[in-house]
């Protein structure tokens, strides 16, 4: 069974990932998030924590990066999917280098424009999704949303 890493920050990003999760039914899935207790709440067995980070905190970014790098070497996922934010973006970048098929799903919170992380992701991902039809253009596709 092919392997999939589904990763997102806590809060809204995670709630969206959980709604999209049935799409991963044909994969052996590892879930990663930044907030302890979230995967347990959904009864997910295969899960791990990644340190949270954002663009303004270089030290935290380095910590997240090394955890993600370690995860990628250990799990070697065939697919990496994220609903954001910064740790998810890093996971897609590292996943891409490791040869995974990587997918960015921009948060449904971004209803007027694609997030900055989403714009960066659009440069290198295989599938780039918005959850708002009016934001689809070029390589950014709309295939539905969670709201």
């Amino acid at each position, binding site marked *: 069974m092919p392997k999939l890493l589904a990763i997102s920050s806590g809060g809204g990003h995670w709630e969206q990932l959980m709604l999209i999760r049935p799409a991963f039914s044909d994969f052996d899935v590892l879930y990663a998030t930044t907030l302890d*207790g979230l995967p347990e709440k959904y009864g997910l067995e295969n899960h791990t924590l990644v340190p949270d980070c954002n663009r303004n905190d270089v030290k935290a970014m380095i910590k997240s990066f090394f955890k993600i790098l370690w995860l990628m070497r250990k799990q070697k996922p065939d697919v990496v999917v994220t609903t954001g934010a910064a740790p998810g973006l890093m996971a897609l970048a590292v996943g891409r280098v490791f040869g995974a098929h990587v997918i960015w799903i921009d948060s449904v919170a971004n*209803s*007027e424009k694609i997030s900055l992380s989403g714009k960066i992701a659009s440069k290198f991902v295989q599938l780039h999704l918005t959850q708002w039809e009016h934001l689809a253009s070029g390589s950014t596709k709309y295939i539905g949303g969670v*709201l």
Partner: protein
Amino acid sequence: MIFLTIGTQLPFDRLVQSVDAIVGDIDESILAQIGETPYVPQNMKAQESLLPREFDEAVGECRLLVSHAGIGSVLTAQRLAKPIIIFPRQASFGEHRNDHQLATCKKLEGRPGIYVARTADDLRQLITRQVLKGPNTGVDVAELEIVTNLREHLSLTFGSTF
């Protein structure tokens, strides 16, 4: 019981203070999750944060969720079939990096179970209204379009390995 939440990231004292001023006048218990802030509410029990499981329990038990306009709160309210009042963070008050919560309110206003408050007055009106209907439940059992399409994309991409 009313459950107030400002999300997991940044404090949002403007919302907390507004609700604090309202609950002094009503006879209903309230649980407030207010983040890391020096502000001490006068009229309600408050805590900095809740564990994920406690958060769901609080939403499950409440009559009404009052929240910043964060997607996590909106989706949790929908999942647990509770009415939610959303009050947007604004960048001009330093409450978030940008105004995406204003956009969220514009997009979600009028949906079943979702109520938008833009001012303290709106908040007071909605909170003191006796009945706020929750979202429709049990009707929409179909799989989300994004789930169907994403599964199809994955199976096309990995067709040979299945």
